[in-house]
């Protein structure tokens, strides 16, 4: 039996946990007392380096071989077949093994920064940030289809019903802003394969799900009062609501009612805070220009295009990400979906790289200038890579694109306690698989949580008979300490 004080703490904690869009989290719960699920989760086992994360998810899988992973040997072998014994074990989405040939990159590559980091000509702005980036060229995953691969990257396993990275972080640490949700999702272009499953909270309460911020004047769904309800009418109504809920609480004593009162008050504050966040009128000309907020999509679009203003939407999202980070929002997932270049690679990648290059570089520089980069982890990458072999699916012009490749891909990070100007892991001569320092997606997750001071084995939640965590229960995942400052 527990003491009244403990009961108070427990109800207080339940209150915080269930209303945790802006507050709460297990860490806070832990500070307030212990319970069955949270007690084991003594958080911040290590001094946290990162306080928030901006994850730029380039869904569809960007071609690492045409952006980062320079392979002169692959160019030499262009048109040649691969050793069939290597291909035998491989599974591809579309590629026909028998007739597939290697495909060199048409891009030109140069080294940048003190570490001599390779970038193709498609990423001039990011190349100029080389000294701030920590690049992993030896990423690998277990999945070769989009939706499972995206779940693997965002939720740690290729299954449904699991919390995403942002859910785990807000569950563990809460948010630092009382007026905004702790986990925000920004979309540009058309939808990703995974849709909303990439930012739902799985078996954690929906208060830990990503809240989608929209473009336009209603950044959060249902933010605007119905027509004819003025702010004054709204406020008077909410005052009455609070009083009536208060009367009910007096008599029923259910702490859930207090939680509801708090949720309505936060909703009201969000009505001001969210439009203020989305209002870029206070940003300088220089900033808007650096992010490219007014850019117009080039005429040659391809499948990267979703609507007519993908570039400016993406730029705006990058700027919003900074504004969210500034306001202490824990996790921002910025999703762009269209990197699946099975054909027409040159044109489409040019479009996508052009979209991403300038604003992401601007975001990193901007965070740095404002002193936010040290505590903000920026991540850029997709769910897997693309094949060194050209795609030769019947019925299409061969070798104008690349197929899905789980064996090796590139991601980069910046800030938040990762080594700047550092590249880690190499692939073999043709970029087929890691030749040194392979990094499994779950190792990446373990490392990410570590940067937040969290032991990935200890941030758990009991579900379906097991203490689930972000990293797979059936694999021994490890923190890649070499990546940390």
């Amino acid at each position, binding site marked *: 039996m527990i003491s009244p004080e403990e009961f108070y703490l427990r109800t207080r904690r339940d209150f915080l946990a269930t209303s945790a869009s802006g507050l709460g989290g297990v860490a806070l719960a832990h500070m307030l007392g212990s319970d069955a699920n949270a007690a084991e989760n003594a958080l911040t086992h290590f001094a946290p380096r990162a306080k928030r994360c901006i994850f730029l998810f380039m869904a569809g899988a960007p071609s690492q071989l045409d952006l980062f992973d320079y392979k002169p040997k692959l160019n030499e072998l262009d048109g040649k077949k691969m050793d069939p014994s290597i291909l035998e074990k491989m599974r591809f989405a579309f590629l026909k093994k028998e007739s597939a040939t290697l495909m060199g990159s048409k891009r030109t590559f140069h080294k940048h920064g003190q570490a001599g980091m390779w970038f193709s000509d498609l990423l001039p702005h990011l190349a100029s940030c080389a000294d701030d980036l920590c690049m992993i060229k030896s990423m690998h995953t277990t999945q070769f289809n989009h939706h499972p691969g995206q779940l693997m990257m965002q939720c740690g396993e290729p299954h449904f019903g699991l919390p995403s990275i942002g859910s785990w972080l807000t569950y563990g640490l809460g948010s630092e802003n009382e007026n905004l949700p702790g986990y925000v999702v920004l979309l540009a272009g058309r939808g990703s394969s995974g849709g909303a499953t990439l930012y739902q909270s799985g078996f954690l309460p929906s208060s830990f799900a990503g809240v989608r911020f929209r473009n336009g004047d209603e950044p959060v769904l249902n933010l605007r009062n119905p*027509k004819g309800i003025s702010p004054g009418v709204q406020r008077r109504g909410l005052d009455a609501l609070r009083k009536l809920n208060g009367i009910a609480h007096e008599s029923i004593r259910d702490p859930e009612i207090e939680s509801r009162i708090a949720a309505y008050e936060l909703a009201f504050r969000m009505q001001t805070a969210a439009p203020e966040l989305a209002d870029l009128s206070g940003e300088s000309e220089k900033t808007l220009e650096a992010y490219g907020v007014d850019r117009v999509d080039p005429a040659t679009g391809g499948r990267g295009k979703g609507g007519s203003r993908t570039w400016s939407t993406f730029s705006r999202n990058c700027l919003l990400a900074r504004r969210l980070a500034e306001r202490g929002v824990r996790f921002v997932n910025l999703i762009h979906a269209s990197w699946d270049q099975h054909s027409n690679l040159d044109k489409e990648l040019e479009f996508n790289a052009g979209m991403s290059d300038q604003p992401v570089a601007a975001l990193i520089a901007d965070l740095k200038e404002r002193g936010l980069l040290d505590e903000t982890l920026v991540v850029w990458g997709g769910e897997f890579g693309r094949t060194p072999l050209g795609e030769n699916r019947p019925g299409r012009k061969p070798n104008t694109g690349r197929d899905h490749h789980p064996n090796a891909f590139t991601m980069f990070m910046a800030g938040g306690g990762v080594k700047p100007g550092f590249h880690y892991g190499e692939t073999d001569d043709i970029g087929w698989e890691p030749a040194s320092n392979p990094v499994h997606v779950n190792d990446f997750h373990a490392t990410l949580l570590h940067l937040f001071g969290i032991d990935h084995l200890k941030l758990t939640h009991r579900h*379906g008979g097991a203490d689930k965590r972000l990293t797979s229960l059936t694999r021994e995942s490890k923190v890649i300490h070499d990546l940390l400052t």
Partner: protein
Amino acid sequence: MKLASKSCLPFTLILSATAPGLAEPIDFNRDIQPLLNKHCAECHGGVKQRGDLNLTSRALAQAGGKSGEPLLVSGRPEESELFLRLTHDDVDLRMPPKTPLKEREISLIQNWIRQGASWPEHWAYLPLKKASPPKVLKQDWPANEIDHFILHRIEKEGLKPSPPAMPGSLLRRLSLDLTGLPPTVEELQSFQSAWQTDPEVSLEAAVDRLLASPHFGERWGRHWLDQARYADSDGYEKDNPRPNAWLWRDWVIRSINDDMPFDQFTIEQLAGDLLQDADSSQNLATAFHRQTLRNTEGGTDPEEDRVKRVIDRVATTTRTWLGLTLECAQCHDHPYDPLTQLDFYRLYAFFNEADEGEVQIPVDTGKTLKAAVMKGHGKRKTYLFHRGDFLQPEKDKGVIHPGGISSLHPLHSPAGNPSRMDLAKWISSRENPLIARVTTNTIWLHLFGSGLVLSPENFGSQGQRPTHPELLSWLADFFIESGWSRKEVIRKIVTSQTYRQSSRHRLEYTSHDPENRLLHRQNRKRVEAEIIRDLHLSVAGLLNAETGGESHFPPIPEDVAAQSFANNFKWNVSKGDNRYRRGMYTFFKRTAPAPNLMTFDCPDSNTSVTQRNVSNTPLMALATLQNIVFHEASQALARRIEENPALTNNQQRVAYLFQLALSRLPEKNELHIVLGLLKENHSHYLDHPDQTRELCGENNPSLAAWTATVRIITNLDEFITCP
């Protein structure tokens, strides 16, 4: 490996001296099993058996241990290897290797062995016992057997039950729990007057009426749809629509309204196609297992996707009917429970042999529609998959034949090679200790907010033990004896005094029973996503209460529909009052589900869910304050109040509003607040004709004031909470 066992003795003695509550009887399930699971199972469980030791059951534990030392010697911890290794002073021999157990934990194990090391079978696998209801002191309290079990515990702990809820509150609770719709003002008033005459008779009549309502099947069907991961689209990248998925959804509603016996309900869904002379409805029933996701993304290996669906069928079947997490045994034996990898693949073989097919279903219009169902039994062979990978069948271990779980009751197969029908009968057998426990626990959960077993999807050793094991056993037995009637179980529960208690929190018990595990009161429950919508539409008089039929498309934000991949799908908003159908008829697109459902914890339908989350967020507040459907409901509700000729003054109107929305009259202070708000709103809209027109479509300040006022009442915590 020989141990210098004497070396631990001094340590042992110290422990005994400090061990708390030596006389306290140790309960294996409560005290010991959790320790074994936590500290030992990782190396000595189903996954790994270091030193050949497996601690998942007594039999396995006794058999194992490479050292040959006796693991447990009843009454003698100092001769029991289990205890000796926990306390060994040689760090290399002490278990667990890294961190020794805490003193308190070691002394628990020591006392347990001293008390005889009793290791009973896991409670959930024990046969059902017709437990007789225990005696109670307060003999005039119980209305039926359930109350004896509950009151017995309450009294044992020195507590008292709560007084019954007010009649209006009780009717609201019953209506929401049984049909998901609030009582009408007329129903409320006639119930209250009948209550004056005879509470028991009026309660029975109300329960009869609600159990017979067509909305009963909707309410309880939706719970089943959660478990069946029902949706109107394929899922994954393409997420193609399944335009006829509703045929099976309606089968569920019908079957539950007809109170189809649960054993038959089980057999038809798992193997209806194999029944002799199966009719179209019995074939349709098997669509339960066509609710699996389907990946048609380019490049997907169809066989891999088929295997995934088969695995999902095994996992969903065992979770839904048996409360077991057998999916853990896909790659290895279950880490905590006596479930083997072989068990998994024996069940897998049943579903592996089944084919996916289609069947023509006649519908009301005289036409027929195609429904996706399961069919017959194919010729596929089943092998163990190495680490669950379908590309690595372990053919050297031979073909796996269909069969039951070896640690449960035997699976009978009159025809030799067991069929899916044999599986269905094995699951719905009276010998099965799990099905009735699991099912009645889930029913209990929907009526009390939490189950007697708090982990309704896991009755294994990692799940929670029941708070009232005898009651659960009694209920399960009653369920079977009633002919597997869900309605009878529900009737029994809702007519108990336990159910009828007030849900008011009792501060005097906050330290003794803070989470109300003893049920010293009823629990308040926030209603589910669909019901929140139904409530708003219902009190507004907008609800189109038609039952069944195609799924509908209420308005959702354009960008949500567009989120669905490659815009392969158009969300064409339903015309007329079809936009006001009940929430459960909203078309469920797996990758772009309707926000009004998801904001309120509707499951994403990608996996089977027995108990929904209940969160409480500002996004919910924004939805019910601002979203179009709720706003339209406020506008209609305001007219219903303002234009009602029977109501002659505002006091009467507020009273009517409260009865309609909250099933009760306002208290004086509440009336004061609402009338005050109404007055303020009225003077605001008198001064703002533009806003008045925007709000209610005409320059009617009174109607505008009511619109701005009723929306506050329908945003009260009480409005969306089952009292």
